[in-house]
């Protein structure tokens, strides 16, 4: 993975830039000392590390605007960062870039239950929103597995998902408004407490734009009343095919569970070793199906899903009889990543989405790849929406294993695209999948996306080197190749 060559002039001006930033953010909000910069050198994709030029931690929107304006005027690159939990290197610093950390934006500004929304600052963690409204009977639906640590600002940048998205949607489906600061330092409000935007859907465009279009300084999220109850089923199968068939049959029966997760044999056993959740060790596939809603509905659907599971050859079925038992069912799944971390020195978490019916094919091809690369793989799968998280196990201390793990990962993602899926379901492209974008998009597709960036950031200062394999100047992207000529297709029907 190559990042753009750092700009020598910017590197040379480091002290001047720091001094200017200190005038905007006084006190200890500007970090230049190498030891203090060290904690910021990586995000959740820890294989990549770069010390940022400077870290700045503003406390007000006006400071954010002034920092961005200064950087824009002086052509200094900026990498926005929340908690730094990105698994795709979206918040990887640049040696010649200011790292703009939003961690001091921690306030919940307003809880408006009558309009079912909350206005929060971007540094508030995902879980903190749900916790703040829990006692009043509400929650914020998207729940990425890093929800204890990840911030809502980062969730917006990556369009974060979680186990409940099949029924409740991703971040993009649960936002009402944003406050955005542009690279030019302009503060813009998009949306509010009402639905839909009057003009172009900038709210939708900004969600998942990986910090490349602007810096979010306030988020208005939808709140939902907590479901009356939730119960889960733990269903084992002798093959991943049978598990996949069961998922298809549940949806075909018109049931959209609150969560529907699948684990393969290696993942089941790693989790069971770790947390003793009572998972069937001999199963080849395990489904956790959660049904939530009014009690009468959940009881009815539990029966329906049990029946469907039996009809699809389930080898074991357990139904949670208490809240404690439901949480135990989930404990193994939620601990799947650290569980794999226990049986392997390192692991690499992938994130592709496939049409669900292709699961058996993809799993069997993955086993072949596992043999080819000599690396083990365990799979957890958001089964309802086809989002696959293969965990490739390797040892970074063995020369060449990291490279093999990355090649293995790339082959998996190419396979996802080959079967009609996509490179990333919820982790983002970042630097990790940047060079694979050509597997999904033509040069023209990517040029049109980059033109969108030009509308926001014509000098390409916001998070450059992420998402797009090639950096083009906006002037170049704006050039038109116009073919003068005859009226096309003389035989096109004209009236």
């Amino acid at each position, binding site marked *: 993975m190559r990042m753009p060559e750092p700009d020598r002039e910017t590197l040379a001006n480091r002290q001047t830039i720091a001094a200017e930033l200190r005038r905007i953010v006084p006190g200890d909000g500007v970090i230049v000392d190498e030891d203090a910069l060290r904690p910021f050198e990586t995000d959740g994709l820890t294989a990549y590390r770069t010390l940022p030029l400077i870290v700045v931690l503003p406390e007000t929107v006006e400071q954010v605007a002034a920092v961005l304006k200064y950087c824009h005027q002086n052509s200094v690159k900026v990498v926005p960062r929340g908690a730094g939990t990105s698994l795709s290197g979206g918040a990887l610093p640049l040696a010649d870039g200011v790292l703009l950390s939003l961690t001091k934006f921690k306030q919940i500004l307003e809880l408006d239950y009558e309009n079912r929304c909350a206005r929060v600052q971007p540094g508030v963690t995902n879980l903190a929103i749900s916790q703040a409204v829990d006692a009043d009977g509400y929650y914020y639906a998207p729940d990425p597995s890093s929800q204890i640590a990840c911030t809502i600002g980062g969730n917006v940048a990556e369009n974060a998902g979680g186990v409940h*998205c099949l029924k409740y949607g991703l971040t993009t*489906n649960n936002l009402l408004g944003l406050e955005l600061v542009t690279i030019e330092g302009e503060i*813009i409000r998009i949306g509010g407490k009402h639905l839909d935007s009057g003009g172009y859907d900038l709210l939708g465009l900004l969600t998942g734009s990986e910090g490349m279009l602007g810096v979010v300084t306030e988020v208005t999220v939808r709140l939902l009343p907590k479901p009356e109850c939730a119960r889960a089923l733990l269903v084992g199968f002798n093959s991943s095919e049978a598990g996949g068939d069961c998922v298809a049959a549940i949806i075909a029966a018109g049931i959209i569970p609150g969560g529907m997760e699948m684990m393969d044999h290696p993942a089941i056993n790693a989790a069971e070793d770790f947390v003793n959740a009572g998972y069937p060790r001999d199963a080849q596939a395990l489904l956790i199906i959660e049904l939530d809603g009014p009690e009468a*509905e959940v009881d009815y659907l539990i029966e329906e899903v049990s029946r469907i599971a039996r009809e699809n050859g389930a080898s074991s079925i357990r139904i949670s009889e208490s809240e404690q038992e439901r949480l135990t069912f989930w404990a193994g799944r939620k601990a799947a990543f650290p569980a794999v971390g226990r049986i392997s020195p390192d692991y690499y978490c992938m994130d592709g989405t496939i049409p669900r019916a292709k699961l058996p094919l993809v799993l069997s091809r993955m086993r072949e790849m596992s043999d080819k690369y000599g690396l083990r793989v365990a799979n957890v799968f958001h089964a309802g929406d*086809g989002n696959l998280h293969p965990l490739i196990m390797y040892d970074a201390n063995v020369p060449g294993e990291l490279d093999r793990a990355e090649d293995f990962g790339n082959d998996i993602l190419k396979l996802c695209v080959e079967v*009609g899926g996509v490179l990333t379901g919820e982790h983002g492209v970042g630097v990790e999948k940047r060079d694979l974008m050509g597997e999904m998009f033509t040069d023209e597709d990517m040029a049109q996306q980059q033109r969108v960036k030009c*509308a926001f950031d014509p000098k390409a200062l916001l998070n450059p080197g992420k998402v797009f394999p090639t950096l083009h100047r906006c002037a170049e992207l704006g050039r038109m190749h116009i073919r003068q000529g005859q009226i096309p*297709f003389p035989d096109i*029907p004209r009236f």
Partner: protein
Amino acid sequence: MSDAQIFRPESAEQLLETMSWLVSEKMPVNLQGRGSKRLIGNPDRSATTLDLSAFTGISLYEPEELVMSAGAATPMAEINKALDQAHQMLAYDPPNFASLLGLADKESGSLGGMIATNLAGPRRIKAGSARDHFLGFQAVSGRGEAFKSGGRVVKNVTGYDLSKLMAGSWGTLGAMHQVTVKTLPRPEKSRTVLVQGVDADEARTIMSAALNSPNEVSAACWLPKSLAERSDVDIFRHLNNSCVALRVEGPGPSVQYRCKILRDRFKSEGKIEELHTSNSARFWREIRDVSPFAAKIDDRVIWKISVAPTAGPAILSQLSNLKNAEGFLDWAGGLVWLAVDAPKMGAESLVRDAVNRHGGHATLIRGPEKLRREISIFHPQPTPLAALSRRLKDNFDPFGLLNPNRMYPGT
């Protein structure tokens, strides 16, 4: 070339060729799928029409994968028929404005048109709008270049989400010819609890309490007496009252259970009635299609106003002094449908002022040609936002060839 002409490409290649030629001639075009929304917006259109009606047909529908791909101009009637057969739906309640706009063809809309205008019916509050169910597309930009975005899977964050940008762009950014959408199972049962004799403010409290309860209310609206009477559902003829309607959907036992909770909860607020399956469906179709203001019974100007749910009744009351003003609330108060007799500029400035006080936007959905020429159809944006939108437009359509002035002057 001033003569009106229509181009009707029949393949993606022909569309690309046509657009390249239009670009080389710098010839603006009016994009048209099935023409069901042609009466919305500024009536001054380009003399040249790019007719996309050849892009029809469902190319992929896998109900158990919750996905459908179709030509952008595939009639909604065809889409709905396929969905019906698989007991599925587009969850956002796609409205049909044929009666509201007074069109002869009652089933005229297309899937692409629904997306390009990003409309949604009563289920918007629970399920989102067209943009929330729009997974991917293929299009040709105003640069004369083919581009695509998204895919056929629900969970996808690969690159910018251009689908969101295309949804609701009214054909000003590109000509979509193929679209992929998310489908969902149709609820097994639907019932509606009516609470009668409540004014808009009382309705606000009831709708809020209902939506904030765990009963998964999938639609909530309020009708004044005069508009409730316009319903074709029998019960409303004898109602002689204003009412709040709360829809509950799902498996049979669950629907019964939740309706009972809602009836008990609100029986002290007003007289309760309950609509069952077909009456419930019929009633919400009327709300979805804004039937109380259908053109054959009503010729007033129609505004669609989106605000925070708590602001809906206030907007209604602030605008109630306008000549012959009458309105109802959908989206639990967040959507105001306002009809008003307004020969002078459609009461635009008063409507806009009222909305700006609360935050939101107002769109003129129906009005005489002259009015649609004179006023801004969409809600004017603050300067920085307008400038950003303008720059986006320029990056998709640098010569302003696609549906000029359809949304905002200059876009």
